[in-house]
């Protein structure tokens, strides 16, 4: 479970202070499928980056099973990401000059996994996500949906407990977006905690337990769609 208290993130832009997040309080229980919805500039990506430990808060706390993120060193935050966090981005963020297999294998690079073990796990994960025929294709040779599945495989190959997805279908057509949505729903049903940031009010609405609305860095409203305790907890990415 992740517990966020009085979280703020302020930064200077053109000499002016921008309050990206301004006093967020929330809890993310294990196994939840949480949607964070808001317009551009509402602070939803900043919140995701803070949870991932890619950014540090101005004030407030983010308590995780691994410890308090706000006070962690770079080394500890890096370990938090390599051990517990899987991240998916709108623009996929694959390394274009490497093939799908290599990109997915990178997910295990900082877990000190041997090269052959990384390759085996990457093949298994890509196969599971329906990409067995695309192992040696470079991102440029893949469709947007396929690229996002490779990115998802990279996030999942290290067996994270929390998946953070930042606009995962933002660059996809409707059909591919539905496939990704379905994949996320399946993973959540297996027990993986999923936090999705989206500006699409309809995305994964039928699968999410809860939706958090952000506006100008503040939590504007919260909707609970279904109860968490009816959830199966058999998540095993391997």
């Amino acid at each position, binding site marked *: 479970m992740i517990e966020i208290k009085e979280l703020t993130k302020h930064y200077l832009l053109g000499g002016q202070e921008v309050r990206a997040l301004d006093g967020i309080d929330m809890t993310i229980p294990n196994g939840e499928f949480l949607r964070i919805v808001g317009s551009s500039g509402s602070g939803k*990506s900043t919140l995701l*980056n803070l949870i*991932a430990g*890619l*950014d540090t808060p101005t004030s407030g706390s983010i308590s995780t099973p691994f410890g308090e993120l706000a006070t962690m060193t*770079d*080394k500890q935050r*890096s*370990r938090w*990401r*390599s*051990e517990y*966090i899987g*991240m998916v*981005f709108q*623009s996929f*963020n*694959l*390394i274009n*000059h*490497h093939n799908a297999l290599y990109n997915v294998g*990178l*997910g295990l*690079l*900082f*877990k*000190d996994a*041997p*090269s052959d073990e990384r390759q085996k796990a990457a093949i298994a994960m890509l196969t599971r996500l329906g990409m067995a025929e695309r192992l040696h294709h470079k991102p440029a040779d893949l469709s947007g949906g396929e690229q996002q599945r490779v990115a998802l495989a*990279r996030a999942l190959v*290290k067996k994270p407990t929390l998946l953070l997805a930042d606009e995962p279908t933002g660059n996809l057509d409707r059909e591919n977006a539905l496939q990704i949505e379905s994949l996320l729903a399946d993973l959540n049903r297996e027990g993986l905690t999923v936090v999705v940031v989206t500006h699409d009010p309809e995305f994964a609405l039928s699968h999410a337990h809860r939706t958090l609305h952000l506006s100008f860095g503040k939590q504007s409203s919260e909707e609970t769609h279904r109860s968490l305790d009816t959830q199966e907890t058999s998540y095993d990415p391997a």
Partner: protein
Amino acid sequence: MILREFIGISLGNLWRMKLRTALTVSGIMIGIGALVSMLSFGFGIQRNVSDQFHKMGLLTTLQVRAVTGERSEATSTPPGHPPVNQEEESDQSPQRILNAAALDTFKAIPGVSLAYPLETFDAYLLFGNDSTKVSAQALPAVFADHQSFGDLLNGRFFTSDTAHAIVLSEEVTEKLGLTPDSALGQVITLRTTGRSSLINAFLDNQLAQFDIPPPARLIIRTAAESFLNRGEKQTEIEVTVCGVAELRSGFGYVIKDVLVPTETVAGLDRVSFSNPLELMNILSSDPDQGWKQALVVVEHDSSLNRVSETIEDMGFEVFSFAGRFDEIKRNFAIFDLMMSAVGFIAVIVSLMGIVNTMVMSVTERKREIGILKSLGGEESQIRLLFLVESGVIGLIGSVFGLILGWAVSEVGSLIFKEIMRREGGPVLDMFLIPWWMIPVALGFGITVSILAGLYPAARAAHVDPVKALRNE
């Protein structure tokens, strides 16, 4: 394990940017190549000088002289006193005569392998109807076991100090109308310019200037001769050619034309002079006063100083080239530094190339850095990744640089050898790459490349992953 992965990633990245990598690597290659070839030139010259010193025995030979001047006169042993190797009852160092007893004392010093007098004299070689003037040196038979006198073309060095044998130089062999093959075994007469004949010639010359009746002249001549000459000595011996050699002079053996055993020529009446003053000195000196100079050869150059001090303590003057050699080595160190400075400048220029390449690489790969950080890469690991990359550039550049340096040395060596051959001098290898230069050059190339990568690596480590990932 992560280091091995990073090396693979670095090689992949460098391979992807082939042209840029090639240009950067060629920079460090030229730098290391220049450094290696310049240093190898310095080492080559140093090696040649050092070899010459060793070949000539300069580092293992001491030149010993009897002390002359006021001090020696004040403490000199009276004529007729038994040979000198006994301490005077004086606060000052006793004067020593450089005679056979003194040489025996030198030989008894631990570490001394050879001690012999420096004896050179002019002589005539009589062979057939021809007489050839030569410069001769008397040497002990064991000399050849310790010192190099040159390259034997045929035969061998004499094996006994009393052997009636002679080693001829190639030039003298030719002058005698012989070849290295035909000369062996030939019996030659060695005739010396004797003290008595010199004195007779001198007296005849002087007495001729005065109007003295012949009987009176005879009396004066006989009286002077008996006073100065003290007995007639042999001036001719027959010797057999035992070897023909390309004789090479060195410290302690000023060999010119022929070598003869010490004892064989000991009984010969022989003098050698180059000007009238020297002749007067010879004529007026006491022939039993010992040798002017002797050479002491030590087994190893490390014992040279100790032996030198011991002999000095005995009251002799000692000179060696070892101190000069240290001075030469210091000068060579400066020369090597100057040589390497050229290489250093080339390496520094190439480092600029590495910094430039790596900074460009960091700028271009910010998104990749952001991805690695999002996957759990620590700042230190990102820094390491880029340091490994610059180190790999350094390694590849250094390997090629070593090859380039070796190639330049080989070509330079061939050119120098050709020039020396044409000039007719000894053909020497002017370049030397010692084995240790390989790891040193590799280590230097890699180290300076890593140092050049420090700044770009720090920039990479501090890339903000949020911005890097948002850029896309």
